[in-house]
């Protein structure tokens, strides 16, 4: 038996860890389920909002701008609670899980869209001229010429926002999603071992954030082209 096996056995021998560890790992699975859907959707929303703001006509652009302005100005937790508690008032009923996903997509998408917008605007006008001179439509130009360059430039900011989202996912516990923090809080009320429990939660989040930033570093390096 190596060190880790001994270590793990020692921990699991104790009743508390034997009970708590499987539970918090279950919470982790829920967190991952929330994130795996929220992250791609939020980035898609971000791109849509940014493109709408820059290339849309006046009303579309204004709408996108107000959407972003509003949800960047609202604290994430306020948006989350508003969606979960207020949507039923207008007849929309979503489960806690989908409310959380919706809130995270809207909030993170709004934040990310600012980076995408800045990146699109930083692309030289000559790129657009060249695309048009080839006979591309505006949509073709955006999809094939502008976005591939802009998304690379937006990547550092966007990945930063996604790492924020990993941490903000803990807020879903407020509306009854059984993710990492909800499990931690519950088991702290049963066993009252706050340092063990919340440090364990912290370690999982630190692990996720570190992995995420590593992945984004790799993507950034892989997608770089000589400039």
């Amino acid at each position: 038996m190596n060190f880790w096996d001994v270590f793990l056995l020692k921990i699991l021998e104790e009743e508390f860890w034997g009970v708590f560890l499987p539970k918090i790992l279950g919470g982790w699975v829920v967190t991952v389920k929330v994130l795996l859907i929220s992250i791609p959707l939020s980035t898609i929303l971000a791109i849509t909002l940014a493109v709408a703001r820059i290339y849309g006509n006046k009303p579309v652009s204004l709408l996108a701008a107000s959407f972003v302005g509003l949800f960047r100005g609202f604290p994430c937790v306020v948006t989350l609670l508003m969606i979960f508690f207020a949507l039923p008032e207008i007849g929309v009923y979503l489960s806690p899980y989908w409310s959380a996903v919706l809130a995270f997509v809207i909030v993170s998408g709004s934040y990310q869209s600012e980076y995408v917008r800045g990146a699109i605007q930083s692309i030289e006008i000559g790129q657009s001229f060249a695309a048009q001179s080839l006979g591309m439509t505006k949509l073709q130009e955006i999809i094939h010429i502008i976005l591939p360059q802009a998304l690379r430039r937006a990547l550092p900011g966007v990945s930063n926002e996604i790492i924020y989202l990993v941490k903000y996912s803990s807020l879903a516990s407020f509306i009854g999603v059984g993710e990492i923090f909800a499990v931690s809080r519950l088991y702290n009320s049963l066993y009252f071992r706050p340092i063990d429990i919340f440090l364990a939660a912290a370690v999982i989040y630190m692990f996720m954030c570190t992995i995420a930033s590593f992945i984004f570093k790799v993507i950034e390096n892989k997608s770089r082209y000589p400039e």
Partner: protein
Amino acid sequence: MIWKYPLLLRYLLYIAEGSVWTFGLVGGGLLIGFLIGLSIAVGQVYTKTAKPFLDAYVWFFRSTPLLVLLFLFYWGVFPALGRKLSPLACSIVVLGLRSGAYQSQIFRGAIMSVGESQLMAALALGMSEIKGVLHIVLPQALRISLPGWSNEYAILLKDSAICFALGVIEILTRTRFVVMAAREALIPYFFAGVLFLVLTHVGTKLVQIVYERTKIPGLIWRM
């Protein structure tokens, strides 16, 4: 029920009064974070031995959710240190500890962009390292940090809402009370959101004014 005008006004005023607590959280957090962040940045740039520890501190506070930190410190760390803090005090300290990690990155970038030659010129005049950093490097670095700092204010302001989890009666806690009393969620939450939005804009405008006022003629900093 909430639509009855005088009652609505009373509810909204009650929520708005929470700004005082929110500002307490943000002001305290920013101040503690400033002191910690600046010390960490100076340590990271000018020392070798302390750097790994400072890096670890920054890493821990940057990659743990505020919510987890609040509970860890409120229920765990401070009682273990024999000093149970009030929810408000604990929230301010935790916001400050965390903001320090974020602010250190702002200040570190700023110190680096001031450049080594400025400190060298100060040393050549006979200044000690401490005096050189204090009189020459930091005055420039702090100005460079202002935009990043106003961003940190906006983040901290919005994150301070999470402190409702410990029961600090700031804007969001009050909003939840109103929601319970009025059995109506949309208007209170929307109002709270707009309140945060306005406070963000007022704060960043103020920092922007300071930035314009302290601008140095003819100098463009490359970040």
